């Protein structure tokens, strides 16, 4: 029984120049405890798919269930079962790390004392204890990202959605974040659904890849299987495999580190 399954998931945006089909029909399943890499060129529909699966955006077609909860019929159940870390993170720069963590726990309906304890526990677990009284604006990129992940883990979700979690991080912080994602899965059995632009990240972190292009799934399999099937050999680079599948490069939107 997969923890997440989507069937024909689609989203069309009305625009002045007619409807734009951002996502045209995504079929995928994710097994419990899996780390799934969700790849695709810019504009392929990665973030739109993620926003649908996290109830932020209503699909215009298709169905999906997350942790047994139907996206359309039980969005509240989906929200209780999943954590979402958006590209932009989503913390107030003028608020302290502790206040954001406690408020987040309270938004997930933890009691006051429970929320305080959970903030301490998460901070200890993610190396934020010394930063608890700092305003979030003063954190480094890597620290900010750890806080964003902590916010997504507050309610011990079954599924953690990460949207381009390492964009803009330096190499050391990226490696730390990869370790963190592996550790979350190992310690809590959390299913991780992550989008990325970085093929090395997908190769290093994901058990399985789903590559989407033009709003539909173009390929699905382990990195090795995809390399063998599309790149010609198990030793092919994921870059060549990706090019073979989509017919174009992944063109990172921004190769210079962003201020996150």
């Amino acid at each position, binding site marked *: 029984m997969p923890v997440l399954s989507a069937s024909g998931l689609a989203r069309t945006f009305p625009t002045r120049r007619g409807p734009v089909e951002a996502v045209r029909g995504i079929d995928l399943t994710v097994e419990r405890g899996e780390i799934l890499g969700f790849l695709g060129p810019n504009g392929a529909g990665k973030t739109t798919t993620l*926003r649908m699966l*996290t*109830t*932020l*955006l*209503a699909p215009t077609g298709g169905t999906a269930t997350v942790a047994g909860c139907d996206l359309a019929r039980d969005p*509240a159940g989906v*929200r*209780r079962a*999943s*954590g*979402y870390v*958006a*590209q*932009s*993170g*989503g*913390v*107030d*720069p*003028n*608020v302290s790390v502790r*206040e954001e963590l406690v*408020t*987040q726990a*309270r*938004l*997930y*309906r933890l009691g006051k004392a429970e929320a305080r304890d959970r903030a301490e526990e998460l901070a200890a677990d993610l190396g934020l204890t010394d930063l608890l009284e700092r305003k979030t604006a003063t954190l480094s990129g890597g620290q900010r990202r750890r806080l964003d992940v902590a*916010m997504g883990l507050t*309610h011990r979700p079954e599924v953690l959605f990460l949207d381009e979690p390492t964009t803009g991080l330096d190499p050391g912080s990226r490696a730390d974040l990869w370790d963190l994602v592996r550790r979350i899965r190992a310690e809590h059995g959390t299913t991780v659904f992550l989008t990325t632009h970085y093929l090395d990240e997908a190769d290093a972190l994901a058990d399985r890849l789903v590559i989407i292009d033009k709003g539909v799934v173009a390929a699905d399999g382990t990195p090795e299987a995809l390399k063998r099937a599309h790149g010609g050999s198990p030793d092919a680079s994921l870059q060549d495999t990706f090019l073979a599948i989509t017919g174009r490069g992944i063109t990172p939107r921004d190769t210079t580190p962003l201020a996150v």
Partner: protein
Amino acid sequence: MSSLLSDTALVFGRYARQTLRSKLQMLFGVLMPLLYLLFFGPLLTGLPLPSAGSSWQVLVPGLLLQLGLFGAAFCGFGIIVEKQFGVVERMRVTAVSRSALLLGRVLRDAALFVFQAVLLVLAALVMGLRAPLPGILIGFAFVAVLTVALASLSYALALRVNSPQEFGPVINSVTMPSMLLSGLMLPMTLAPAWLNVLSHAMPFRYLVDAVRAAFVGDYASSAVLYGAVVALALAAVSLALGTRAFRRAAA
């Protein structure tokens, strides 16, 4: 129901702390009505106004609602900034009640503008306002309900637009005609017939008339009743629109 209350209290607390951190935000909204009070109010004291009470009993109710009108209409700016930081989406994926995301914010706004209304009335007392206490309290209640209504609409609009540049002009093009057509500064009974008739199509006019009646102690008048009905209806419709916007915010 109890989770709606505790969620609302939680969201209210977060934004109340945000306001308390910024002394400037706490006082900025009161600046414009205060300037009218100081530099426009004295012009009216000698004029023969066609209403009961002193000129201050005519002007101060208008300034209270001006405070609510302009303050609340611009509340959406805050959420545009939050949207850019991703705060709105981060909250929308949590288990928190959708209505609480709106209610917590608009109740903070109502508290802020009632606080500013108190400051304004204190300044008006120094300038020469004399009005019965229940009338003044009714005025504060109207400021609160008007704020809830307009702030809800402002947030609903702000969730739909992507930049402050799109938001500002829309708000300005609504607030200015609202101010002029509701007789905020001078009673519409001074107006020629066509303007008086036109102003009856402006919902805020009923609120202004209601608070003016309350300030001269005329609590049981039809003006207060109509004002209360219009204000509550406006708030109910606006809250429904605002909640819907939080439920399915795009962008």
